[in-house]
């Protein structure tokens, strides 16, 4: 069980972010908690691709054929980061608009927004 520690760290970061969102009293805080929640996926992806004794998948300085960690999940993580950034940018713009329309930054006071 201890050997799988990174997997549990990923879940822990996820729950920390989720707890922050649940207890959030400010929309910017909510967005930041979402980034914490999402950073758990980086840990999980890298943990899955990790191999004990593997080199970084960059063949500048090491000869081809050397055992490396998985480059595919690292590439996926790059996509993950870009998507997170765009989501945060959009959410923060929505926070600005929510403050303009409702005059509040507290998630509890957003009750004027009804579908």
């Amino acid at each position, binding site marked *: 069980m201890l050997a*799988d520690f990174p997997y549990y760290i990923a879940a822990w970061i996820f729950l920390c972010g989720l707890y922050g969102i649940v207890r959030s009293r400010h929309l910017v805080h909510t967005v930041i908690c979402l980034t914490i929640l999402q950073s758990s996926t980086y840990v999980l992806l890298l943990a899955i691709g990790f*191999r004990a004794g593997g080199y970084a998948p960059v063949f500048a300085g090491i000869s081809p054929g050397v055992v490396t*960690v998985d480059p595919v999940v690292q590439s996926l993580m790059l996509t993950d980061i870009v998507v997170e950034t765009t989501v945060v940018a959009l959410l923060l713009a929505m926070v600005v608009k929510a403050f303009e329309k409702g005059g509040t930054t507290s998630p509890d006071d957003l009750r004027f927004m009804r579908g």
Partner: protein
Amino acid sequence: MSEKRRLLLFLAGAVGLAAIYTAGILNMPAWGTYRGPYGDVIAGLVVFQRHATDVVNAITYDYRGFDTLGEEFILFSAVTGVTLLLRPESEEKKKKFEEGENPASFQDRAALSETVQVFTTAMFGFSVLFGIYIGTHGQLTPGGGFQGGLIVAAAPMLLYVAENTEAFERIISHPIADFLESVGASAYALIGVGALALGLPFLTNMLPLGTTGDIFSSGTIALISACVGLEVAAAFMGLTYEYLREILSRSRNEED
């Protein structure tokens, strides 16, 4: 929902997730004993097939280049979305912003030490150069378009730290940023279409591969990485500008 009930709901969910997650992890291969075949296959082939040494970038811009094209357009549409959301809604507000002088809020502050001002300004050129270096060497060492573009986009913020708000605003609001953003995004798609024109599948690496380890190696990987860098740099400058304009128009409105 009250605070307490919300917390109880979260705790119930967290316990459930922890249980299911733990059960899942216990049935997975132990950490550090990676068994997936794809990473190994690609890592063994990249240097020979694509003459690139950074496998991660070879995957991002070549083997799954189609995904990255979509990812690039996610960024593109997000910037459009932010621009739309933060647009000045009333004509009056817009006019006020355009006629506004440098906001007092920046000048009111105690003067920054000259050392900070000189060094942050001097670091501007270095940051741009470093960003370009990272962006153009992605096929060889860790780096690439996304990372390099971000460093370039962050460079003008040094001017903001140096309280040279005017120069900062002038750089990030330059109309050429919009143009370069479109060029970067469309060039990526056009490289893909170029392969179609030669009768090859979309986004095939059809350029000469060059010598492994050279800066002009790896065919389209280096080229696409540069296009992505251009788009990312311009897109993030655009994002910064939208938020800055929001702050400035707010402080200008408060002055009246």
